[in-house]
């Protein structure tokens, strides 16, 4: 009797999970389906989910029409740079805010959080002028620098640093470590879940960036993949199958990435929030 109940519960759970999965992914499913369609109508009603004659020609076309491989490389460069910057700066900045005692610590932290409340529409152009004055026009550094320090990153790291038992650090100090060594040998390694989580958040954010790189970059061969997507979805590119293939190509890496690293996402949030 108990077992039957369990089986029913099991089956019910999976039915709900599948139903929800469909709810959340239906647009993506349509895109995947379209990306494999040959010369058949794609805007039919009711929509046809299974291609009549599946083909991979659209995927090949993506790489032929635009330098998609180069765009992927560019995105990778921008993303890697961004991730490295964000992790380094947030890890460094949050440490004194969490683990050291000094005058003005709380004030500085509150000031850092403040801009979260401020809508940043106008910042785009002001930052562009600053980037140009710094001589970073049309560079990857120019793309990454304005977002190299994020408030969310500092917040996340600080919350994790707060959970380090003070005894460990004190023990190190007693053992004769100077402050730098305390940071490098004790505190920083202990927040690895946070640095991993931050790296992942940064990765997803940079992967999808579109407008800012477009404004800073002046050479089309430096464009990231999202711009490539826009190029394939313009009104002069009526073949939506190719655009669909491109969309799949751009979304799949990030989904795969999420699947394998979700544990770190979760660990990251754990330390941030439950304090």
């Amino acid at each position, binding site marked *: 009797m108990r077992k039957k109940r369990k089986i029913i519960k099991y089956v019910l759970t999976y039915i709900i999970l599948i139903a929800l999965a469909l709810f959340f992914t239906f647009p993506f499913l349509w895109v995947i389906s379209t990306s494999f369609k040959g010369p058949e*109508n794609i805007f*039919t*009603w009711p929509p046809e989910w299974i291609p009549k004659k599946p083909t991979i020609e659209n995927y090949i076309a993506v790489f032929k029409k635009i330098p998609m491989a180069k765009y992927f490389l560019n995105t990778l460069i921008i993303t890697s740079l961004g991730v490295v910057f964000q992790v380094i700066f947030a890890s460094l900045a949050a440490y004194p805010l969490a683990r050291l005692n000094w005058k003005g610590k709380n004030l500085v932290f509150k000031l850092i959080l403040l801009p979260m409340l401020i809508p940043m529409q106008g910042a*785009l*152009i002001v930052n*562009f002028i600053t980037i140009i004055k710094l001589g970073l026009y049309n560079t990857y550094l120019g793309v990454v620098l304005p977002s190299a320090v994020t408030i969310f990153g500092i917040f996340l790291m600080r919350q994790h640093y707060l959970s380090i038992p003070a005894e460990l650090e004190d023990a190190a100090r007693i053992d004769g470590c100077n402050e730098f060594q305390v940071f490098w040998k004790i505190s920083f390694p202990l927040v690895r879940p946070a640095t991993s989580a931050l790296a992942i958040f940064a990765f997803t954010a940079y992967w999808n960036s579109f407008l800012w790189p*477009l404004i800073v970059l002046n*050479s089309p061969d430096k464009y990231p993949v999202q711009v490539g997507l826009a190029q394939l979805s*313009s009104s*002069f590119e009526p073949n939506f199958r190719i655009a669909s293939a491109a969309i799949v190509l751009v979304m799949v890496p990030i989904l795969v990435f999420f699947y394998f690293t979700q544990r770190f996402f979760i660990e990251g949030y754990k330390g941030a929030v439950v304090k």
Partner: protein
Amino acid sequence: MKKLVLVFLVVLAVLSFSKVTIEFWTLSLSPTFDDYINAIIKDFEAQNPDIDVKWLDVPYGAAVQKFTAAVTAKQAPDVMNLNTTWAIDFAAQGALLPLDEYLTENEKNLYWEKLWNSTVIDGKSYAFPWYASIPILMYNRDFFGKAGLDPDNPPKTWDEVFKYSRIIRANLDIYGFEPNIIAVDELLLEGIPIVTPDGKKAAFNTPEAVAKLEWFQKAYRENLMPRSLGGYGEGRQLFEAGKLAMYPAGLTMLKHIETNSPDIYKVTDVAAYPVGKAGIIKASLMNFVIPITTKHPKEAVKFALFITSPKWQIEFSKYATILPSTKQGLETSEEFMERAKKGDLNAKAMLMASKSMEKAVDLNAITVHHIPSDKYSQVRKVLQDYWLKAIKGEYSAQEALDLAEKEINEILAN
């Protein structure tokens, strides 16, 4: 001494061959027209060895932001592709170079007057008209036949469109047509002025305007057009899904249908866009402007003239369903005449549209609507709001126009 002379000669040589590099941006033309644009660049550079041309293509949706940022930061190109509204907006902000001192009358005369005048503000010209799209009427011959209408006799006026739609709804129970409703345009196409010539008071609240609005209300009530009022985008999807009989839209949509719904394309035919009382057709015009920040105005002008020349615009028409803005148009192209004869629907549509280019007007032009540029988007928005609400039945036609008039007079008075 000899060294000095040598240096002097080298410097002289370098200076006399110093190249000017100009940069131009286009909107969403890459990768589709890479070959075409590169051919233009190659030809121009060959004819002008002292000018190097650099090309950047920008996605349409982000163009305003990128261009604004560029002009602000003084990194703008020398030649910029913009649509008429944006060209006028930027000209009104003082960001564009007035062109008259760089051009002769003959050069201006290459283009259709109405199109050139779209971007003339206070007597100064600000843009070179480039490719244009004018709407045509696409219709499904199959549906006509099945509803008892003659597929070789498409509607010529909006009243006929209405009549045909009724028949289609009655016999096939699908939508007759899908308009792309822009209130200001609907009024202008019927010859109804929006404001008084001095731009100070509303002038659209006339019996003719009421009649036109009531025409839309009837079409809505009888479900002859989709009640979601989704415009071109929705119309294309419905037409391609076989749920719409008549699709009045820009030429470019034809290619879309051809690519995405080949079955529907087989039974599609084209007719001239129905004309309202003003006898004009709405043109969607792309232009080239020259930002005021340019360091090489003469070279920029030269290039703009080159890329918008009749020869190259006609060439463009071979790649895309667009029309040249020059008086010398597609009828002078043997290739097009041949293709149309052979039954190429695209070519047929383009030749047909080409004949209407004389009537083509870009309704976004201040010389057409007379609304002061800094009030333009507000006036448009107010009219659009009330127009659509009336169509949906929230107001009567007269009520909506009265309310719009009141609000717009306030806006214009400030």
